[in-house]
């Protein structure tokens, strides 16, 4: 089965360890715990998918740390990347 890794129990995203297609069921491992998740679209190796619904404005958490915020609602199993996450830091465009 295709695999993904969740780096911290606080994380709401998993990193995919292979390329995945829509409707693939992926084993996402957090430490010893493994959860199955159905991905909703084609996602590349090394990219992230949502482990649960992340609402617009909510923090995206990886490594147990805030890595940005959702710029739109992201459903479980969706690709989480630059199209739906924005940085909270280094934003000269907002300064």
């Amino acid at each position, binding site marked *: 089965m295709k695999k993904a890794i969740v780096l911290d129990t606080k994380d709401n995203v998993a*990193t995919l360890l292979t390329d995945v297609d829509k409707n693939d069921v992926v084993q996402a491992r957090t430490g010893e715990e493994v959860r199955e998740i159905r991905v909703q679209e084609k996602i590349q190796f090394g990219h992230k998918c949502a482990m649960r619904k992340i609402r617009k404005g909510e923090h995206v958490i990886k490594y147990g740390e805030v890595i940005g915020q959702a710029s739109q609602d992201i459903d479980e199993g969706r690709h989480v990347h630059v199209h739906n996450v924005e940085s909270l830091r*280094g934003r000269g465009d907002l300064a």
Partner: protein
Amino acid sequence: MKLSGYVRPDGSVGFRNHVAILTSVGCANDVANKLGRMYPNALLLTHRQGCAQLGDDKEQSARTLAGLGKNPNIGAVLVIGMGCESITAEYLAEEISKAKKTVEFLDVLNEGGLLAALPKGARFLDKMIQETSQMLRVPCSLDALTLGVKCGLTDTTSGMATNPAVGLVADRVIESGGTVVFGETPEVIGAEHILANRAASPEVKSKLYRVVNECEERVKASGMDIRGANPAPGNIAGGITTIEEKSVGAIKKGGGKKLQGVLRYGEIPREKGLFFMDGPGRTPEALTGLSGAGAQIIIFPTGGGSPAGSLISPVIKVTGNPRTAERLKDHIDIDVSSIIQGESTLEKAGELVFQELLAVASGKATKSERLGYGMVSIWNIGPHM
């Protein structure tokens, strides 16, 4: 542990034994290039700075150029200037001579022009190569090492596998009494609280926050979103979404020891231990800064397989991305992608990198050395006048 190097008169240890031709100013590069063609074994260190710079920027260029000359991998240095520049060859020669190695300088204009300067430079180089080539490696210990660590062409495998494995090597160097310098200030934005918790003193902590804040303020003053510049397009293609995500993974490359100090770009640490160097993430500048800070060897975790090198300090390229390890194996010294594939551990991967570090320090040529990759590129923080 088998390790050997060239002991310099000041007690430092070189893991390479270069004779360098260093220009004090970009206008002298053509003279250096001509001498370099005559003496192809000499290491050519040319750059575009050295004049028409202001204040901190000029100081930064001078500090870095002197640091490059002082790097223990260099046994002797010929500094070439024009005689009209602000960072003079004489000044650099005097600074470099504090490391007690053979240093000579010449000013092209004061010598009466190019045709007069060339034979004088050739005589200096001829003698330096004759002397330096007779130096021998002797056994030494790891406390003589200043290890530079810089990551590049980062993807999501960097933060999950490669950087933590390299971090274990950094920890071992420090446990052996050595020094580790890592940097890339933009790639601390969003992770500064993690690093700050390991600061050896409140002063180090506030200095770290200050350099990260100054870096972020420069981005804000530009009116731009940092994304696109850092993370760069290659990082984004590799799955890195924001600077915060990149940073949390990036700081793992420095390991987990106490942070002894925050250095200016190209500044040589005055004690042993772990140091953070202020500076950009852009590879040529970051590598030049580390060589200027005295790193004899640099470990370079990479996701996408950057070929980059430093002319002075051998660069060991490590990847945790299985596709990069296969596709760009001519750039990669150590493949730790078995971590991601669940077939190895960080500890085993760290041991692999550590053994490579010892081999490279003792003379094994890295891929970027064999391919001849490297340039001197000094971080420029102000305008040229």
